[in-house]
């Protein structure tokens, strides 16, 4: 990761009113310039980050699985309007349940300009698995290390710079509950989208045979489903023999799903019948 300019303010700036140019826009997201997704393991505080940024009151609760649908809200930062999408928590992108599918589909096909992966500072190792899976899909990742206050109380210290260096994407320590670090987080998101921060995500490339196989499949997928983002990920799933991805490709559901991400979340549109009765 290289930083072209020193855009990221230090924490002290946040208390200065002159620097405070975040505007919470709530539901007023008729027009927006950028889309930012909030992903992460269950119960890491995604909805709290969402509320802090948008000024909305998305229901939060201390249990995994609380958010089962996509919630959308807006904020404006330095004159740019962002649509923020709060996704259900998920441990991996290979998952089966409907709430996790909502998250996976959006990261895969919703083409957010940036994905913030909210992690739990007190359980970082487990959280990193999802971070690395998201990085497999997109370069535009910012890791938010949330619950820093809780970590501190438990005597856990997290070195954000070491993490950032190892992952190749920015890592920002935050405490969403009090709003600490939130400003740095969105400044980093803005810099990343503008190209002022260039990421170089750590990826597990696999064996040469594997890379070759992926390389052969990607153009074929792009031909059958034109404009599909993340053909590489789909290729890997097909090589893995994922029955649901196979089915989605054959029935053309893949393209539908891609389009569905563009609509405002139809809260009850998830079908049990298609995925469920296999």
């Amino acid at each position, binding site marked *: 990761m290289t930083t072209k300019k020193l855009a990221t303010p230090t924490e002290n700036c946040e208390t200065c009113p002159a620097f405070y140019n975040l505007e919470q826009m709530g539901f007023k997201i008729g027009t927006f310039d950028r889309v930012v997704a909030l992903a992460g393991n*269950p*119960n890491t505080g995604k909805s709290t980050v969402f509320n802090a940024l948008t000024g909305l*009151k998305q*229901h*939060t*609760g*201390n*249990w*995994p*699985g609380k958010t*089962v*649908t996509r919630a959308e809200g807006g904020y404006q930062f330095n004159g740019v309007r962002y649509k923020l999408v709060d996704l259900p928590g998920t441990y991996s992108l290979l*998952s*089966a*349940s*409907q*709430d*996790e599918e909502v998250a996976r589909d959006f990261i895969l096909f919703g083409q957010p300009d940036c994905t913030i992966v909210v992690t739990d500072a*007190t359980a*970082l*190792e487990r959280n*990193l*698995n999802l971070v*690395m899976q998201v990085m497999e899909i997109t370069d535009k990742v910012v890791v938010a290390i949330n619950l820093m206050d*809780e970590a501190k*109380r*438990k*005597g*856990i*210290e*997290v*070195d954000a710079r*070491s*993490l950032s260096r*190892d*992952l190749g994407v920015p890592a920002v320590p935050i405490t969403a509950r009090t709003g600490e670090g939130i400003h740095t987080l969105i400044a980093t998101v803005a810099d990343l989208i503008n190209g002022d921060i260039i990421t170089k995500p*750590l990826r*597990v490339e*696999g064996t040469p*045979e*594997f890379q070759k*196989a992926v390389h*052969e*499949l990607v153009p*074929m*997928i792009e*031909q*059958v489903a034109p404009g599909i983002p993340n053909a590489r990920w789909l290729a*890997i799933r*097909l*090589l893995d023999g994922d029955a649901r991805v*196979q089915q989605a*490709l*054959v029935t053309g559901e893949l393209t539908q799903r891609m389009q569905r991400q563009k609509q405002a979340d139809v809260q*009850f549109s*998830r079908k*049990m*019948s298609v995925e*469920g*009765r296999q």
Partner: protein
Amino acid sequence: MTEQTLKPNDILTKAEALRGTLSTSFRDEIVKSLYNEAENIARRAVKTAQDKKYDFDQKIDRLITSPIVGLPIMLILLGVVIWLTVSGANVASEVIADLLFGIGDWGRALFNQIGIPWWITGFIWDGVYLSLAWVVSVMLPPMAIFFPAFTFLEDLGYLPRVAFNLDWLFKKAGAHGKQSLTMAMGFGCNAAGVVATRVIDSPRERLIAILTNNFVPCNGRFPTLIMLATVFVAASFPPALTSFIAAGTVVGVVLIGIAFTFLMSWLLSRTLLKGEASAFTLELPPYRRPNIARILYTSIIDRTIFVLWRAMQTAAPAGAIIWILANITVGDSNLARLIADWLNPFGLLLGLDGVILLAYIIAIPANEIVVPTMMMVYMGAGMMIDGPGTSAGIYSLLVDGNGWTILTAVNLMLFALLHNPCATTIITIYKETKSLKWATVSVVITLGTAFLVTFLTASIARLMGWV
């Protein structure tokens, strides 16, 4: 294979062929190296000191999720929440009722004074307004206490512990352990509970959770239970004990509901939805200090006001309908009475009466308005002696005026617990399952259970000569 004829199936064939060139465990190897990498990175970035708080958390968890005292602690917490609700709501309800009914009297008098026709005065003040006044005074206080208490436990991190404690029971019933989470959400609102079942990944177990969610009383039905428990069950005890007896009764009803959840899950997983319970992992999150300001905001604005507003929206037209039915005279009776009389034999069979059934039919859009609807039909007969908001007033209206017994009260509680979901929940079930069949099944199961259980209790009580 040319570019024009490339079909999805060709890709599958190609992928199949390419898979042959890879080692069989290629994906496992990638995942494994991913995990190793994560472990290394985390080790470099995280420093952990000696951890006292964590030990303390674990000690609490060992107690709360212990096989011996875990369930009793849960029951005690449920009892405390309900006792707080019952004892707090009682006083507040009477104050609000006095105020609102006072305004009603004043408004009626005013309308009469300035010579507005009787049917406009009646429609507005005895129909729409009275119904709204009942809903607000009966519902607002319990919700304003119950929701914050429930949200507090939720924020603390108690819900996953409940799931942990109840897991073995759900497993025995052939259902998913996460059903206890959706069941807990059902206490707030059954429609919300049905949506929450998305956390369950097995479609079979998800359907079980959807179909049985209605057996926990939602907040729309709690006021009915609380009122009946206070007015009837607790009335025969010394005043110092009433709030405890009433809370105990409501806890008892809730437990019956949970028992039916298990029973019905068990039946379903052996008949319509055969299969084994699947295993799952559920994280026990750390205990977090709840943010009181946010709890109050969430529970008062998002939940209480929202639910109350919905209830008022259905109560106003329901009040209008009842007033009209009660004021269309047919011979020397009125339409409401005639319908109630016609339903009466069936009602009596269930230990209820015709008015109660009529109230339930009018209240299908929202269960919250059952009691107000019922009261209004009874009051049409003009039997109110004490103030309408007081326990004594309600007691005299129902018992002296309309022949209620303890059986009526108990069976109404059972019926309120078990009967069909409200319209919102039924629509939610339809949308979540995308199936008319399962939406219908949800109504048949619950209504069937309600009829059967109330019929049995009524018959047994009569055979034993208790009533």
